[in-house]
Structure formats: C-alpha cells, structure tokens
C-alpha cells in the first residue's frame, strides 16, 4: 500500500559490511528501519527512550541506541548489529563464550549486551570484572543473568577478545 503524501527520503549506510539503501521518513527510528525494512531482528525494542540498551548497535564503532536515533542520523555511517558480530559458522568470541557460560535466561537483552561488550573489548582487550560491569551498565537485564554475562565477557577476553 502506498504511504499517501508522506515525505520519504532515501538513506544509505553500511550495515554489517553491506551497503544498504532504505526509503523512509526522516524521523523514523533507526531500529524500525533495521528490524522492519532490513529484516535484522537482533536489535530489540525495549523502551523507545534509549534507557535499556536492548536496541544497541555500533555506529562507527560506538554503541548507540537505535530506538531513539532517527534514520537520517545514520546516513553515510557504518553500522554493526549483533548479527554482524558473527554467525554459527564464524562466531565472535563473545557469542562462543555466551553459549559456553549459558549466559542468559530469556535472552531478549543479549544482542544489546553483546554490542556493549564488543565495544569494550576493542578498547580494553583484558578488562577486569569491574570494567565489564561498568561497560554493561547501560544494559538492563530483568532475569538476573548479570553474573553469567560478566563471566562470559571475561571468558571471551581470555579467549582472544575481538577477532577483527
């Protein structure tokens, strides 16, 4: 169905190393574009206010809330979602470690946690427990899997951290 008279622009950016082009209203949240237009469902909607971390993606390497970032602000930038960290055949050390440590309960917050952790390991490849907790502090987890996730990040760091 046509969208009537809305002004829709074309925006281009790189997602997980692939050039993408989307047509969208300029204030549409980046999260909506990633999930609904590009079919990348790792980043989740949690609060819409950038307060819970479920929707974090890397924009030019910085963990950024996709729920309150308008799509225009991502134009021309390089984005990485949790899908872009690795897959079953080439898992990121963090993904391997999260599976080894069984570091989740419901897992809704995992994608955002992985993004925060990936950003941490790029700047601090050998963090201690306190540094990991600080890096994940903007990610909320309601199930109480915090301890497991911190252990998983420490394990990933010990296993070589950021493969890139």
């Amino acid at each position, binding site marked *: 169905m046509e969208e009537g*008279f809305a002004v829709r622009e074309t925006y281009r950016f790189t997602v997980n190393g692939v050039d993408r082009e989307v047509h969208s209203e300029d204030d549409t949240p980046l999260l909506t574009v990633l999930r609904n237009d590009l079919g990348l469902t790792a980043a989740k909607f949690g609060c819409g*206010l950038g307060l819970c971390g479920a929707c974090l993606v890397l924009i030019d390497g910085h963990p950024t809330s996709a729920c309150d970032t308008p799509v225009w602000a991502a134009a021309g930038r390089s984005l990485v979602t949790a899908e872009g960290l690795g897959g079953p055949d080439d898992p990121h050390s963090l993904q391997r470690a999260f599976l080894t440590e069984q570091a*989740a309960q419901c*897992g*809704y917050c995992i994608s955002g946690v992985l993004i925060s952790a990936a950003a941490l390991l790029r700047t601090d490849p050998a963090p201690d427990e306190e540094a990991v907790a600080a890096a994940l502090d903007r990610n909320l987890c309601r199930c*109480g899997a*915090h301890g497991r996730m911190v252990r998983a990040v420490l394990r990933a760091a010990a296993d070589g951290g950021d493969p890139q």
Partner: protein
Amino acid sequence: MIDRVAAPRATLPKDLAANPRLATWVGFERDRVLVRVGKVELGQGILTALAQIAAAELGLRPDRVLMVAADTASSPDEGITAGSMSVPESGAALRQVCAEVRWLLVRAAARTAGCDPTELSVADGVIRDGGGRYLSTYWKLAAEISLDVEATGEPIPAATGTAPAADLPRLDLPDKVFGRPRFLHDLVLPGMVHGRVVRPTRRAARLVEIAGEPLRAVSGVLATVRDGSFLGVVAQREDSVERAAAALGGAAVWRGGVELPDEDDLTSYLRAAPSEATVVRARDGADDRPAGPPMFGHSAAYSRPFLAHASIAPSCGIARWDPDGGGLTVWSHTQGVFPLRAAIAQATSLPLDAVRVRHVEGAGCYGHNAADDAAFDAVLLARALPGQPVRVQWSRRDELGQAPFGPAMAAQVSAGLDGDGRVVEWTYDVWSNGHASRPGYAGSPGLLAAAHLERAFDLPAAVDPPPQRGGGTSRNALPAYGFPRQRITAHRVLTMPIRTSALRSLGAFMNVFAIESFMDELAMLTGHDPVAYRLAHLTDERARAVVAQAARAASWDDTVTGEGRGRGIAFARYKDRGAYCAVVAEVEAVQEVRVRRLVVVVDVGRVINFDGVRNQIEGGAIQATSWTVKERVRFDRTAVTSTDWESYPILRFSEVPRVEVHVLNRPDAPSLGAGEAAQGPVAAAIANALFAAIGVRVRDLPLTAERVIAAMDA
C-alpha cells in the same frame, strides 16, 4: 544406563490424567520425535528441561527431540505455566508418557523377534536384543504401533543402553546469541500490519470524544477502531502507527476514573479497605510439647509496595481473523494458551473451537504481565481487517503503567516467648489485594481491553489461588517453625484501585520477608545467634540442612569487618511444600544499601538440570535483590507515574551481588521446582544483614536510603 524404574502409580500424573492420549504428547517424524507439552517457554529454560526428560525416558539423543511450542490446536492442555510447577507437573506427565511410548516400541520389536522385551536395549532409538543384534528402530516401528491410546500409568522398566544427558544446554540460546528471529516480537507474517491501542492514564476513565481530526496528517493509516472506551489504530508501517497513536492520544478526551490510595501510607489503606479474612491456621498447642504461658512478647509491622513485572520487552500480540468470518488465530507469549483462548472466546462471543492460540516466546515472564492483554488488543484491531495479521506492541509506558502489578502488602506479627526465648505463641495477619486476575478469573475474561468495550467485561478485584495451589496472599504465611500456638490470618482486600495479579512467588516474597525479619528480631532480643535460633525451632531435617549449609558456605562464624558491612540469614520452604531455600546476604550500607554477596542453598528434590536450577536461583536472587533495595511502583491520586526506567529503576550490572548457589541433590525425592524459591529468603536476608550492618531495622520495602533514614527516625 538409567538407574531408575518408573515408580508404581495408583493414578496418572495430574496433567496426564487430563490429557491421557499418548499421541497428544509424542509423535514420530523422519528421524526425530516431536514432543508436545502445554507448558511454555518463559525464558526460564523449561522446554530444555522437558526435552532432557523426554530424551532420557525415550532413550534418545537429546537433539532427536523436537519440542513443539504450545498450541491450542494440538498441545495437551496443561493450564498455565506458573508457580514452579512445570517440572513437577509436566515433567511427571512426560516421563510417564515417554516411558510408555518406549515400552510400546520395545514390545513391538520383541514380538517380532520372539524374545522377552526386558532383554532388549535402546540406544538412540535403535533397538537391539540381549546379544547386541540390531532389531529395529523407533521410526520403523512407529508405523506398526498406534499411539492413539491412553496412558496406563503402569510402571515401566527403565531404559537401558542410552546414557542420559547431563545438563543439556539451552535449546533456544543459539538463536538468541546470533540474533536470529526467535521472539514473538521478531515474527513477521505475510501481509502483517501494525496496531497500537490508546489508553487513558486513569484506570476506568471513559472516552468522551476525539477532538479534531488527529489522523489527517498521518500517512499509512488503515483503520481506527473505537468500541466504547477502547481506542486503537492500525497502519501499514510500524513508524506510521506510532505517529498515529501519538496523534490520537493527544486528541482523546477522557473523563472520570478511580482515585488511587496514598502511596505513602499503603499499610493504612490495606488495613482499612474492605477485606475478606481467612484463618489459614489456628493451632492451640503442640501435640508433643506442652507450652506454658509466654513470659514476654514482641510485635512488629512490615510492608511491601506494588511491584512491576518490568519485563525487558513490552508485551506483544498478533491476531488474524479468517476473511470469511469463521475464526481467529492469535500468536501470544501468554503463560497459558488454553485459558487465553477461553477468555478471548468469552469476550468475543466466539465458540471455543473458532479460536486458536499459539505460543511464541516473549522476553522473561515473571507472572501475569500484559501478554494476554496485548493479544486481545490485537484481536480487537484485527477484526477491522479480516485476513490480515495485526501486530500490537505495547509501549514501555503502558507496560510499566497498565500491566497488572504485584500487590502491595502489609503484615502484623507478634510472638510470645518463654523464659528460654522460645516462641510459644505466634500471631500473624497479612493484608493484600488478590494475587490472581488471570484470564478467566472470577468469571471475567480478565483482559484489559475487554473492560473498555461498549459491552464491557469488568475487571473485578483480584482473587487468590486456592490453598492447594499454594494460595496467594497467604502463600508462605505459615511459619516453617514448630511454634506451639499459632493463629495465621490472611485478609484479601476487596476493592482494586490498582490492578494486581500474579508476580513471581505471589505473597511469599512479603510473608517470608516479614516472618524471617521477625525471627531475626526475636533472636536479637533474646540474645541468640540467628542461625542457632532458627535451628532451635526447626525440626524438618531438610530445612535444617539448607540452613546449616548456608551458614557453613558463608563462613557465618567469621566476623564481618568493614564500615557499614553486615551479614544476615533467612530461610523458607516455598509454598510450605516446595523447595527449601536458605540465603546468607552480605550488605554494605554507606550511602545506600549495596548487596555484595548472596550465598543461596536450595534443596529442590531430584534435580533434572543442575545448570537450569542454578540459573533460575541466581536470576531469582538478583531479581529479588532488585525488588528489595530499589523497586516501588509510584503513583499519585490519579495515575501510575513510574512509567519509564528512570522512575522505575531496577538493579544494574554495577549493582548486582555475587551470587553463589549450592544445590543439594536429593535424587530419591520428587522434583519440587526452582523458579521462585529464592525470592522471599533473599529479601529477609538482606534486611537482616542491613540490621547487622547499621543496627537499624527497616520493615518497609524497598530498603532505600530514604527508608533507612525514616526507620532511624522512627
């Protein structure tokens, strides 16, 4: 080898008695076995635990077992997934079903081979005779036998030949770690469009009018739906529907609504409101030990605020009406597909068999949240667009402001002690709104939107589950200690200005907090060590074991050093008949109450999956820590005001305690369920540690700096 023979049963396990056909539970397909259960994955890992049971009883590699999500069209009806009953109920049923199915197949192989079935072994579905010769496989034999028979409940010889998997890893985790679609929120159906519901902030306010033409400038709107005070909108795209809902919300004019109680004096409100009293226990003396009159007494009052589920995902629902008006399919992260189906049928006047509810995972569920409400929202909006699936996702604001809350509670406890400081009289009163307003309660569909329709189905005051399901207000109101004279009364409040329902552990969180805080007070008053004082009143050996083990593991006898640091202990047996749990907490109270360490010892009977139990206990302990030190639903006299993560903060990574879980395995005892055992003991252990740290008894949750100061001034 599985070293167990299914125990003789006079009757079938409860869920099997209700769904006795074997084919309802198990089916064979290519080289897999489909296992259908009525329990649902809520983020607790239950389908993994049940897959492990099925694989062990069938004698299969776990990866052969395919767990099918609950679906009213094909699954056994196991009611709701709640109350830590999934392993005890579904596990018991599945164990018997899978043993009987294996035995049918083994006997079929034995008949063909002309040998004794007890001599045969099964390894990953391959059946061999006593000499190790191949006879057949499950998948070949499946065509020769019928599973369209009822379970007999007869004891089945144990499987031989297949080693049971220890701690099967979570089946759902790879999808979640690699960001693949797994949640209902990720589900995209052909032709799916997006809906949103606009609600008043005041409960039971009526929609008077919609001012102007708010949707004139919003593109992509497909339908607006108004039915009484229910107002919703559907659009092609999700961003369009968000804009449309914001515009509609700004233009909707509401009138009336209920007045809310004073959030700073909930105890007075609860004790003054009309209520229904139930004497849970009235005991005039112990059989074995005559008790004299008390020498002195002590009493205290405790409270907890309303608590939000605060799941990390807002609730979501998808619904599609048949284009010919025949029926309805709903996708939901509900706790019970069958009760939701019945509620939707009631609210829509459809026959039961015209409604199909399919479970798809949502984010972590800790009780009756807005999952059912969101599903019904989708039903109402989808009716406007037959044939098209409509997806509704709640806002964070609605999730924290409109979903049912765990009720506020108040307790008054008093004890009379003999000359040795032992309790001889114990009186306990607890006041609370009911803990159950799930779909179908009190004759109501229990769906938020149904209360707003022109033909409205009201939301009556929440009820309590019956005692045989552990009660609600009275859950764990009975002390585990052998006090000679006891009078325990639960008062269920009969008005409900703030919507309440089940939150993990129901009344147990508050009742254990009150009882175990008070036990600590009595120990202090009488100059006893809190561990020794509890042990002196406990006779159940399993209870004594977890308390003693917690004290040992936490080095209870070592002195705590450091400014503002202290250690406290608490114990409970969940629902008086579930898991035993003792917790030692270490806190540091300088600027605020920080919980540094929790040592948790549990006895959940026979353990199915050790890591699953540890994960549930760890998670429960951290969540209970969050409830205890931070959480409180805020409201003024008209509406809930704590509707984002700043006004309803939960525990963050930098604030979580180190949690050490010790699981005492009792392979010969029935499995008791682990999901809720830690909630109450954690709260009391923290409060007791706070007292040990700073000498202040804080009896009103949460244990914030504000409450500590108020308690100092009291």
